[in-house]
């Protein structure tokens, strides 16, 4: 199966080269058969990558311990669940997994547009094939996952040998979230290839209008959704597995996942200016280019060893390939832009500073500044070493100080932006839309201050969150009220109806609401508490309202590891509340250990209990307990963001009815432009 996989990868590489070279000829000659043949070669490339990937998965499941990658990342006792995760747990497999996910996107795009956009698709196909060639080069010639264990034999030939068992999977990766976090994050990274290919293709083809933006909106939303989910799942994994009580440590690899998310978010906002007003064309094209390049940069940081991180793969020379690829992309994008920049001239102008357009500009400014600040902070240790010879670390305190104020500005714009009108917002509109939310949030902030909330950042965050929530709720309320007055349905049903009539706009509000919840959760970090204590059986530890009683401590052998487990009874007001089982697992195969944190999570706070090992002095078990307020809001907010993104991807109800030929009842047409308040006028296909 290893030979089969290798062969499939090699064939995929050849097909990708044909799709690339043939694609260039197809663009020049416009020969229909060649165009078709090139497209089919692109699809065949994807099919062959699927085969290679499944071959590697099969090698894991069949315990093929003559394949070096399988030996390094699996063992016989590893559960089936984690044998799947082993696919992306190392350099070679994760690169194949990257190619696999990219192939899914490429195949979907080529298939979806096989009979559409005949002018544009050959260019897109060439760009996609170019990207695939790079990753297939790595898969085939630089980091093949199908290498076998071999020693030089007596006659000079290599003798393949088989190991009895593998080294096992890194304990940190033996956690359910590691089975879904990397696929999500990688789906985000690879997903941005599609908007990149369309943007570059459209630029090269001088494709007219905003067509490429319309074509790629859903692809971008999907990639962004995966990226968001991936980042949050990674944060949750860090929280639940690493056992340091936090979820975001501004580690270089964490930062690498945030960078394309920031530019991708900026793009999703600024793209509306191009759709609505024909503005920011140059900016949007470069934002997509930048987002894709940051995806590549992110994986470069993870794989090259340029920056030190617990999440990074082992240091290797593969980083040079990525740096070269990045340079090539930059040159191609720059040349394409210089040659075709006339096509990107803006059609419209700004009527007023107080307008939706301005808010988007500032939104983009904040996101980009945050992105560049995080990037320069991440790379500063490297630059400082180059310049002065000594490496200066840039840790979490720096990133927090820089990004928290930027986050607040962004939060403020989240509330303000959607309520500003395109072109110009009148004073009346400003008063009508912002008066109540502003007064409400300021009063609520004052009450919180009076009640003892003195933490400056938390107070500001709370006030801004309330401001944004109230602006969003008022928007829903106004819209639902009009729908209700026409349809007579309940308020909740009217709100749903309203959302389904303009999924993009109201889905966007749901996303914003999710972001607010995440900010609320982040604000809680200012009030974290922790206590560490050596505990005898029967002794207690007090943290916040909880009293932890150590009932027992045991060492128990399991199939793949030995667990040291504490049995802790949690009491509140002297009443038993629940049992927690923090443990540490020692994996014999690779002599590594991992933490299993016990968390009792409520909306108010998380009781986070870590078994921190035994005291070196007297072998007494040590407990490290944390009380982390509002953490659950972050995960809940993440779910809302993902749901909101899914809503934005749904077709508007009116579109569905139009497509199906159904007649919408008259009562369900509540919003004729003359009756609807300006802020809730509905149009399809726009935010």
């Amino acid at each position: 199966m290893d030979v089969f996989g290798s062969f499939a990868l090699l064939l995929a590489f050849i097909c990708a080269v044909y799709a690339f070279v043939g694609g260039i000829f197809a663009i020049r000659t416009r020969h229909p058969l060649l165009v078709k043949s090139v497209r089919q070669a692109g699809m065949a490339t994807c099919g062959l990558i699927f085969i290679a990937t499944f071959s590697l998965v099969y090698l894991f499941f069949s315990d093929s311990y003559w394949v070096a990658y399988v030996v390094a990342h699996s063992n016989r006792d590893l559960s089936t669940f984690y044998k799947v995760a082993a696919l992306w747990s190392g350099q070679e497999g994760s690169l194949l997994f990257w190619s696999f996910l990219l192939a899914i996107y490429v195949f979907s795009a080529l298939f979806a547009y096989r009979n559409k956009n005949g002018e544009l698709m050959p260019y897109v196909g060439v760009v996609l094939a170019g990207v695939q060639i790079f990753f297939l080069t790595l898969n085939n010639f630089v980091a093949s996952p199908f290498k076998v264990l071999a020693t030089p034999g007596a006659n000079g030939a290599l003798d393949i040998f088989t190991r009895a068992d593998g080294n096992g999977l890194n304990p940190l990766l033996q956690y359910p979230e590691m089975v879904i976090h990397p696929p999500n994050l990688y789906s985000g990274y690879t997903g941005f290839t599609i908007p990149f290919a369309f943007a570059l293709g459209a630029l090269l083809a001088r494709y007219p209008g905003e067509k490429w933006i319309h074509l790629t909106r859903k692809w971008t939303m999907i990639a962004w959704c995966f990226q968001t989910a991936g980042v949050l799942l990674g944060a949750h994994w860090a929280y639940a597995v690493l056992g340091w009580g936090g979820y975001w440590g501004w580690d270089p690899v964490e930062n690498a996942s945030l960078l394309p998310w920031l530019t991708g978010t900026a793009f999703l906002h600024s793209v509306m200016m191009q759709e609505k007003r024909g503005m920011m064309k140059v900016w949007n094209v470069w934002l997509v280019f930048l987002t894709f390049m940051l995806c590549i940069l992110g994986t470069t940081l993870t794989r090259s060893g340029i920056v030190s991180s617990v999440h990074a793969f082992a240091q290797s020379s593969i980083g040079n390939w990525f740096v070269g690829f990045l340079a090539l992309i930059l040159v191609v994008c720059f040349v394409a832009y210089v040659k075709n920049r006339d096509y990107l001239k803006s059609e419209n102008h700004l009527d007023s500073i107080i307008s939706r357009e301005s808010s988007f500009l500032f939104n983009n400014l904040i996101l980009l500044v945050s992105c560049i600040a995080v990037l320069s902070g991440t790379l500063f240790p490297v630059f400082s070493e180059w310049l002065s010879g000594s490496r200066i670390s840039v840790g979490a305190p720096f990133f927090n100080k820089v990004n928290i104020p930027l986050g607040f500005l962004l939060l403020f714009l989240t509330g303000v932006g959607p309520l500003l009108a395109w072109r110009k917002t009148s004073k009346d509109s400003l008063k009508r839309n912002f008066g109540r939310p502003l007064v409400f949030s300021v009063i609520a902030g004052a009450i919180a201050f009076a009640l003892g909330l003195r933490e400056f950042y938390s107070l500001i965050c709370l006030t801004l969150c309330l401001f944004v929530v109230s602006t969003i709720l008022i928007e829903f309320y106004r819209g639902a009220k009009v729908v209700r007055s026409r349809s007579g349905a309940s308020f909740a049903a009217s709100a749903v109806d309203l959302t389904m009539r303009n999924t993009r706009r109201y889905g966007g509000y749901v996303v914003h609401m999710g972001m607010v919840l995440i900010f609320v959760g982040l604000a809680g970090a200012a009030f974290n508490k922790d206590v560490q204590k050596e505990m005898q059986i029967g002794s207690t530890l007090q943290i916040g309202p909880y009293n932890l009683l150590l009932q027992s401590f045991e060492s128990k052998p399991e199939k793949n590891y030995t667990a040291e487990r504490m049995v802790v009874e949690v009491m509140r007001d002297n009443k038993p509340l629940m049992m927690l089982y923090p443990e540490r697992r020692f994996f014999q195969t690779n002599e590594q250990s991992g933490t299993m944190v016990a968390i009792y999570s409520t909306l108010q706070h998380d009781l986070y209990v870590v078994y921190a090992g035994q005291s070196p002095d007297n072998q007494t078990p040590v407990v490290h307990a944390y009380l982390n307020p509002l953490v659950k809001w972050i995960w809940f907010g993440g779910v809302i963001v993902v749901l909101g993104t899914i809503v934005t991807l749904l077709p508007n109800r009116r579109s569905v009815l139009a497509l199906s030929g159904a007649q919408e009842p008259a009562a369900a047409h509540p919003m004729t432009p003359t009756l609807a308040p300006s802020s809730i006028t509905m149009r399809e296909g726009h935010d």
Partner: protein
Amino acid sequence: MIRSHRLVAFFFCMAGIVAFSLPAVAQVDRARQIGGKFMCMCGCNQVLTQCNHVGCTTSTAMLKELDQSVARGDSEDVITQGFVQEFGTKVYAEPPKSGLSLVAWVLPSVYLLIGTVLVVFIISRWRSRVLGEPATAGGASGFSAEELERARRRVARDTED
């Protein structure tokens, strides 16, 4: 009388316990506060007080050294110098605000400043374009201000979503 003496004695005992334990609590807080400014040197890329690696000898030794320095009453500067001498500048959790490291602090503000200037420039350029166009000159087109405002509201309504 005896009871009141006992109460006084109890009070002094408690005051003594508090007086003895307060410096210890203050020391722990101070050590934690200073420890938050250093990185653990085990390669975990975490702040010293947050490293929880199983059997991490590096953070244990560093924290022990920190506790001893704090117990001796060393100033933060002295403690910092000691750590920098031992581990180099990479021990800082955040770059010091001097020398080359100052660049790291200044850059985000510079980005924001340049970006803001750029956005303001773009907005003013777009505005000047529209002001220069004859189509927007109400008087010349013969529309009254009221008519223009009505039309503007209609356009806003049509374009807003």
